[in-house]
């Protein structure tokens, strides 16, 4: 099977970027929008074609999906063994990701034509979108750790550029910087992990590293550091990178702020695609995570996922900025995916968590993008991000309302929506392998339903506000993506994922567990009910409850002061004390000592000028004294 055409999946977006980037002030905005959409349509088409070709027409090897390379070339050599390749790796997860990324990206492109209409940097925006798409595509098809890292960084940069798109807004600038630096910090771990892995695993190539019979996995115990295998350390460090990108606790602080970017960007990058890169990374390296040191690293993944999802869900309860609620919800859902991977085993049905995670990734991309785009549509209409400014919008924006409702239902795990199926599998996997996590997950499911419907009711129901401009339904370019994604938010549940994306790449069949599903559904429904009770009409219950929780509420409202903690560490400790004292040290001590040597020489020179007293007899003393002292030295001292 020849997949070399897949190179175009990468080439088309980058070409678009260069085209739009270089001629950004010469191309008319309308044209650039069309260029972007057309390019993405082609890319999406290619992705679907590849998916179909791979899953249905490519023969399996011993019943397993095989790894194929669209293209693979040497990019740089470190040593004879260690080298960086550039290539396109095709296997179930990468193809799934291709589909996700291209679909969402296409939708966002279309949506942006309406949303960004009239913006000064319209062309630039599309250029950056293309850049992001290129980077993300490159990331998912990476053949080795370094390639993934390379595109990982590029994704980070395009995220930076897009968050800082409204660069004249100081908050946007700050958010962009924060996002970049926090993820960069996480990437530090990733990079060190890669380097360690390269050294101990002997390669960066996934094919070699992930081979369960390969040297990297078999010899994991050969060297250890502080009681853990170095390979485990490497995996943990790499997971740190993943956690940073995927906004896992405690590296999540950038994600809410990233909502300063244009909403389509939030939908594309900070909900559907880039933030799941961490999940994708763990999934990509899953054999290693699983086999090395009995999955020690995987436990960490599971617990980090669980804790993140819990914390995020709690924080989401108290937020008023709709995009931030969605952001915390994203974080919470990614926590789900992480924990699902974390509790997964490898073979067959044991690997349910893996499959569930990927499935949830897929469905989440659809419904979360939907929710964000919906939110964007609302913001577009009333020019505010805050729930307090909204209410009763269902009349003004019916399509948005319906699609948003579908998205909310899907994320809450309402039966027969996509979210229901994927989340159910996650719960099942957690139940099977890790009970504490299962209960957390269940609790979070309830919270999720509650805050989503808190959001939903506050926006579309509640009391009617007096709007300055009557809100309008959005144009078709925005409505179409909403509708398409709404459709997908339901339809994605009916794709048989277990026949496509599994841990060991063999097909298995899901046993649908009605009891488990019933529990989950009832939890979800009670959450919705509670929200209905609280927010359908304006009541004072929320306030009472928040007062009842007292300090806990304040803490939650302030996101547990994690931001403040980071600020304290960076701004006060690192910037002010460490960096400031270094700068001081350099100016005064290092430079000062160098200058001091010079000054001392000069002042010494001033000091001894009296020797040249102008008095002839003093000279004579020096002369005669010098001569006889020399005699003394050579004859009687030495």
């Amino acid at each position, binding site marked *: 099977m020849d997949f070399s055409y897949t190179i175009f999946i990468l080439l088309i977006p980058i070409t678009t970027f260069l085209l739009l980037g270089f001629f950004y002030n010469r191309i008319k905005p309308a044209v650039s929008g069309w260029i972007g959409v057309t390019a993405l349509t082609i890319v999406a088409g290619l992705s679907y074609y590849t998916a179909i070709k791979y899953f249905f027409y490519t023969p399996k090897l011993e019943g397993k999906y095989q790894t194929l390379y669209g293209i693979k070339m040497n990019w740089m050599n470190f040593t004879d063994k260690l080298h960086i390749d550039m290539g396109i790796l095709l296997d179930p997860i990468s193809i799934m990701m291709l589909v996700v990324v291209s679909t969402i990206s296409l939708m966002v492109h279309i949506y942006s034509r309406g949303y960004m209409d009239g913006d000064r940097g319209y062309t630039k925006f599309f250029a950056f979108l293309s850049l992001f798409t290129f980077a993300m595509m490159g990331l998912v098809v990476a053949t080795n750790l370094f390639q993934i890292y390379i595109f990982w960084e590029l994704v980070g940069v395009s995220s930076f550029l897009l968050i800082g798109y409204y660069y004249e807004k100081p908050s946007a600038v700050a958010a962009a910087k924060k996002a970049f630096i926090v993820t960069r910090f996480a990437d530090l771990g990733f990079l060190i992990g890669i380097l360690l892995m390269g050294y101990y695993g002997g390669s960066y190539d996934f094919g070699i590293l992930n081979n369960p019979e390969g040297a990297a996995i078999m010899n994991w115990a050969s060297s250890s550091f502080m009681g853990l295998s170095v390979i485990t350390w490497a995996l943990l460090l790499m997971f740190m990178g993943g956690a940073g990108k995927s906004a896992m606790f405690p590296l999540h602080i950038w994600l809410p702020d990233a909502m300063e970017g244009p909403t389509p960007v939030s939908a594309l990058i900070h909900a559907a695609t880039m933030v799941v890169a961490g999940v994708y990374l763990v999934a990509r390296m899953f054999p290693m995570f699983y086999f090395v040191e009995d999955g020690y690293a995987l436990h960490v993944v599971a617990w980090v996922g669980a804790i993140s999802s819990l914390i995020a869900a709690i924080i989401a309860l108290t937020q008023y900025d709709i995009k931030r609620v969605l952001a915390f919800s994203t974080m919470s859902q990614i926590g789900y995916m992480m924990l699902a991977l974390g509790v997964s085993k490898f073979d067959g049905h044991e690997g349910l968590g893996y499959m569930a995670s990927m499935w949830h990734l897929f469905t989440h991309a659809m419904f979360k993008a939907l929710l964000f785009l919906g939110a964007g549509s609302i913001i577009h209409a009333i020019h505010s991000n805050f729930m307090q400014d909204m209410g009763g919008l269902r009349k003004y924006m019916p399509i948005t309302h319906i699609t948003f409702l579908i998205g909310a239902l899907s994320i809450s795990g309402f039966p027969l929506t996509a979210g229901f199926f994927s989340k159910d599998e996650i719960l099942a996997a957690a139940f099977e392998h890790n009970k504490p996590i299962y209960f957390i997950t269940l609790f979070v499911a309830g919270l999720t339903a509650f805050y989503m419907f808190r959001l939903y009711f506050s926006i579309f129901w509640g009391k009617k506000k007096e709007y300055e401009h009557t809100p309008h339904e959005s144009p078709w370019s925005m409505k179409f993506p909403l509708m398409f994604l709404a459709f997908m938010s339901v339809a994605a549940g009916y794709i048989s994922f277990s026949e496509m994306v599994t841990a060991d790449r063999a097909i298995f069949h899901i046993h649908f567990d009605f009891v488990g599903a019933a529990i989950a559904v009832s939890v979800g429904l009670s959450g919705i009910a509670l929200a209905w009770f609280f927010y359908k009409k304006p009541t004072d219950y929320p306030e009472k409850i928040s007062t009842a929780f007292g300090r806990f509420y304040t803490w939650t409202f302030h996101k547990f002061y994690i931001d403040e903690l980071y600020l304290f560490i960076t701004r006060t400790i690192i910037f002010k004390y460490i960096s400031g004292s270094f700068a001081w040290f350099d100016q005064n001590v290092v430079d000062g000592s160098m200058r001091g040597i010079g000054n001392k020489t000069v002042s010494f020179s001033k000091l001894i000028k009296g020797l040249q007293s102008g008095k002839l007899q003093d*000279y004579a003393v020096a*002369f005669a004294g010098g001569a006889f002292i020399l005699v003394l030295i050579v004859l009687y001292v030495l």
Partner: protein
Amino acid sequence: MNISNFLVMRHEIILLVLILFMLVLEVFTTTKNKKKLINVAIGLFLIHTIIGFFPQETASLFGGSFKTYGLVHFFKNVLNFGVLIILLQSADWLRDKVAAYNKIPEFFILLFSSLLGMYFMISSGDFLMFYIGLELSTLPLIALIAYNSHDQRATEAGIKMILSAALASAISLFGISMLYATGGSLYFESIATSLHESNLAIFGMVLFFAGIGFKISLAPFHFWTADVYEGAPTQITSYLSVISKGAAVFILMIILFTVLPVLNETWKIVVYIVAIATMFTGNLFALRQQNMKRFLAYSSIAQAGFMLMGIINADELGISTVVFFVLIYIFSNLGAFGVVQAIINQTGKENMEDYKGLYRTNPMLSLVLLLALFSLAGIPPIAGFFGKFFLYTAAAQKGYFILVFIAVVNVTISLYYYLLPVRAMFLETSENPIPYFKSKNMMRAGLLLTVVGVLILGLYSPLYGYIVELSKNIINPDLLTYLAK
């Protein structure tokens, strides 16, 4: 005694004839015509210089009192060349200033006598000739220092010089008497073979060293230098700083290497200590000088310290590097002094302050000074660098790496103050800079020669190769083998 012997002594004889000729001219020219003597004298000296370049045999005359061989011959030519440049540079001064005092021919007589003294000194084969040569080179020079008899500073300089010089030669003589006592002769060759290491010999050697160290202005025998350089007419200062110093270094080296090799263990220690003291003294004092002449005086002290690094080598390499360095040093220092002179003649200003913004008004002069200072500082590809580098090599060859290290520390210090005039000229600007002026042709020729010298001498390697050839076999190989036992 025959004609060929005289040919061997032709430097001396022609110069003597020149002196006498000037004396005659002095008597027979009227006051008005004396200005013309300047050109005559310079022209005659040019001829003398050219004749000097004809090859010459190795010879030893007057029972060994007078010796000449390739290197000495070469060195005399170098001195001639230096003096020629000095004469070219002084022409203006003579014409504009000295003519007023009616002292022109005397200037040449005294200067040539001093040069003649140098010849005899570096050709000397015994201590007597050495002493007489030394005095002959010094006394007329002192007269020249105090030449400007209405200038109090010049007179002060003269007094300081003559009293210091007298003290130095007295101490030196005391030392020579001890060498005479221990070596049994005044002749260098006999001393070299019959001298044995003894405290008395070392005593004598150190006192002798102090006496000649005075001429070279080595610390702590250098104190007269700055004051005299400042007070003397600039032309004489440059003569003092290059010709007088160069000749003294040369003969010190020859005596230490060929007459006193027995004491080499000791005099190396002396040279080592004195070299370090000299470098530091020169550099540290030069740091804060404002007067250009004093500044160059200390700089020349520091340079003398570097020359000792070649001497400490005590071998052929040392000879060749020192001679090479002195040659380059003559050109560099004359370049610097030439510019200082030109400015003093024109404006009477000799402070570094006055040099501010000089580049904007007198770019050529500034560039000459820049090159000269860079050469003194030892910055490639200007000749001074090669001279210094070879001196380091000479010291390092015998393992004196610490000395080399101290030297490079000093080079860095020296770079600082050599850059100060550069800074004044190029970097800074002034309210009233020295206005543009056109130098006379003689001065230009003098400066041009130095510029060509500092640019070419280092890069043109055959020159150094020639010096190396000349330096061979000066140290008696038999003596060395004898000493090795």
